[in-house]
Every structure is written in C-alpha cells, then in structure tokens.
C-alpha cells in the first residue's frame, strides 16, 4: 500500500470537513494510505505572507521538516496549503538569505528541512499516479446525468503549474469524464473565487462568485466540482444572497471532486460527507 504524509490543514476539520471525509474514503477505496503529519501547524495561507515573509516560509518549513521524517510524499488537499508549502520550497531554494533564517529557526526547535519533501495535490495523485484507466475499472455507479462544471480555482495551478496548465487546466475534466460524468466547457474554470475576500469584502466576493455560478449554469452544468475548501464555501454558502442581490437564480450544488468520485465508486453519500453540504434549491442529480 502506498502511504502518504497527510497534511489536512485547518479548514479540513471545519468548513472543509466533507472534503476530509470524502478524500479519506476515496483514497481508502483505492488502497492509498493517508497518515496525518504529527502535530502539523497552519500553513499560514495568504495572511501570514502579508505580514512576514520569512516567518511564513518557516511555518511551512516546519511541516515539511516533520513530513521528511515520515519519508513519504505530502498530500495537501486545500489549495492554499498546497501552494504555500510549494512556494516555501521555492523560496528556500531560490533565496539563500531566507533559507538561512529558516534553517536557523528550525534548528532552534531541533528540526531540519533537507529539501527533498515532495508536495502533491490529491487531484494530481489520482490522475497521474493511480491513472484514469485504473479509476475507470473502479467505477461501479457512473455519474450519468451529471453535467459537471470543473472548477480549479487559482492556487492549485498557479503560479507553478506543477501538474497542469496554469491557465487552461485539464486534469479535473479528465477525471470527471472517467467517472462517467458529462463535463461542460467552463472557461472560468481557473478564475479566482476571491478567497478570503468573502470574509472581508463580502459584496465583492458575492459578485465574483455569482459570475462563476452564472457562467456554469449558462453552460448547462447541474453541479460544480471544486478542489478547495474556500472555493467550495464561497460558491455554496452565498447563493441566497446572490439571488436577492442580482435577482437571478444561480442555485447550483457545489461539491468536492472527491465526493463525486466516491459516488462513482459506489460509496455511500454519508461516507462522503454529502449530508454536510448545504441543500440548495437545485439538488444533486443522484438525490433527485
């Protein structure tokens, strides 16, 4: 069994709980192990980097150092965590002054980061390690009737584009098609949801997410698949407000790609945390 060092990040025990549940279910079903990095800390997200760059890198480096002790590749499902961990690796490799400070900091805590940790997103692992052919053989309940808008958001593909095109990614499209879904052409697939701006500048966040849902609906999608807990929340939780603000119905179920894949594998909705998603006026095709 391949085992990964699991970095759930703070969101996956709160807002992103169904992401954690469905990821564990899908990986378990495929015989992939997830072993949580012991005593991992917050990645720092975009906020820490806005206050102190060196310390933001050190926060991420502590997690990488802990993961290296496990001798396994890191799996980071949250897009912000995924990017921050990879960005920290680039900063340490490219800027000796930062590397020096970070190494000194880690040393004070008895830790070392050697630089060989590999950070992966579950989408990358499913498409490139497990492979679409193997996925197809596991599909027992193809997603017939699902017209999926594949939404990547920004930070799993940009700026590094480690496993997919930074502007026109394809992996999620291919994975959803392998699960038997019809994938709609969705030009806004890598357009930002605004991230934490929903919490600070709600009007701007609501408008941005309204446009994303409106486009998905106009492309005849009946479900939107996400890869990030913040995107999922921003797109799901404000649909009432969008209807009131823009006098237009953009209700659409917004689910994690791991939840859809789990359904295609014949796993129970409850195992996939689907009861935790908000019930929208437009239910999932399977729930109709």
């Amino acid at each position: 069994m391949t085992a990964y060092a699991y970095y759930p990040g703070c969101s996956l025990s709160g807002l992103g709980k169904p992401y954690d549940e469905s990821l564990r279910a899908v990986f378990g079903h495929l015989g992939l192990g997830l072993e949580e990095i012991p005593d991992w800390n917050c990645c720092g997200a975009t906020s820490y980097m806005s206050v102190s760059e060196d310390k933001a890198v050190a926060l991420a480096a502590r997690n990488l150092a802990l993961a290296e002790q496990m001798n396994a590749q890191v799996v980071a499902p949250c897009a912000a965590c995924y990017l921050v961990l990879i960005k920290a690796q680039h900063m340490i490799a490219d800027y000796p002054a930062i590397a020096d400070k970070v190494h000194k900091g880690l040393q004070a805590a008895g830790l070392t980061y050697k630089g060989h940790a590999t950070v992966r997103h579950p989408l990358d692992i499913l498409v490139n390690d497990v492979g679409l052919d193997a996925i197809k053989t596991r599909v027992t309940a193809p997603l017939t009737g699902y017209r999926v808008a594949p939404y990547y958001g920004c930070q799993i593909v940009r700026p590094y584009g480690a496993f997919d095109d930074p502007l026109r990614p394809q992996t999620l499209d291919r994975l959803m098609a392998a699960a038997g879904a019809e994938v709609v052409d969705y030009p806004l697939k890598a357009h930002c949801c605004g991230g934490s701006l929903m919490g600070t500048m709600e009007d701007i966040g609501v408008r941005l997410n309204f446009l994303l849902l409106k486009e998905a609906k106009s492309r005849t999608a009946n479900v939107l698949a996400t890869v990030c807990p913040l995107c999922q929340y921003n797109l799901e939780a404000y649909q009432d407000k969008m209807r009131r603000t823009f006098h237009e119905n953009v209700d659409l179920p917004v689910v994690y790609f791991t939840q859809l894949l789990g359904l295609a594998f014949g796993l129970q909705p409850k195992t996939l945390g689907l009861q935790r998603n908000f019930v929208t006026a437009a239910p999932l095709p399977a729930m109709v």
Partner: protein
Amino acid sequence: MRNVTTHCRYAEDVNAAFPVEIMAKPGGEALRDCIQCGTCSGACPMAVHMDLTPRRVIALTRAGLERDVLESATPWLCASCYECQVRCPREIKVTDIMYALKRRAIEKGLYPKRFPIPVLAKAFYNMVATNGRNSESRLVIELALRTNPFSLLKMAPVGLKLLKTGRMVLGQDRIKDPKQLKAILDAMEES
C-alpha cells in the same frame, strides 16, 4: 485612499529608495522590465474594484510615489490568484510584488484605515503564532468585532447552517507543542 486621479505629484512626493527596496525583495527583481502593457490589469478579477489597477501600481512604484501605492486598497484587494504573474509577458512577479507592498504598508502603518483586510491578516498572524493553527469561526468573530460588529447578525444564518452540518468548530484548535513553534519564530527574530 487619496483621489489619485486629481492629486498632483511633486519632487518631494518621490521616495527614490522605494522602487530600489522593492526590487531587492524576493519577486521584485524584474520591476524595471515592465512595458506598461496592462496585461496584469486585464487579467485581474479584482481590477474593477481597485482604486489603482495593477499596472498603475507598478508604474507608481517605479516612479517612487510610495504614499500613493501604500495607501491604496489595491495590494489588499489582491486575492493572490497569480493570474497577472502567470500572464505577464515580462515575467514580473506581480503577485509577489503585491505581497511585498502589503508588508511594507504594515511596517510603515500606511495601509488604508478601517479597512478589514489588513486587520484580518494581523489577527490571523497572531492567532497562528500563538496556537499554531487557525480557527475559522474565531477568526471571523474577531474580525467582525474589530471592524463591524453588526455584520455578525448578518452572518448568523450561514453560521447556523455550518453549525448544523458540523462544519463549524467553536473551540480554538492548537498544536500540541506551541513552544516549539515559538522557538522557531523567536530564533528568526534574533537572526
């Protein structure tokens, strides 16, 4: 935020060291290569809400007009989606420059007043430095109390839904060994 379209600039408004110092920051190296094509502004999903477009921020930074840049909402409205950075034909790391501007604005106390985004950044920073983890619900409540307490009422319906679906953790999550994290951060302060 000053009205940048009507404000006249003079030699004394220029801080010649500003662009030099930004270029010395990680990601700032290519600042001088900008050809003012506006690709960054065209790509930016937030540009319509900004007082200065990203292209103008780059131009004003190069010109040394530090106050105009740091008092602008633009760096704070940057959602860090890196679309400008990926599309820039001159390979300028626009998003990384926005981060450098945010940090400088905090250092100099020049960010727009009563603006919730830097308040969130600092609350988040302190919460993680102390506990090692971020608790979403506590952060949202702290932010509301510091900026607009009435917004808590508006948030109640979504909050209840999150509570009902088991997606809201009310306690403060923390790592087992916050002292270890503190040792790292303290050692960095000294070096």
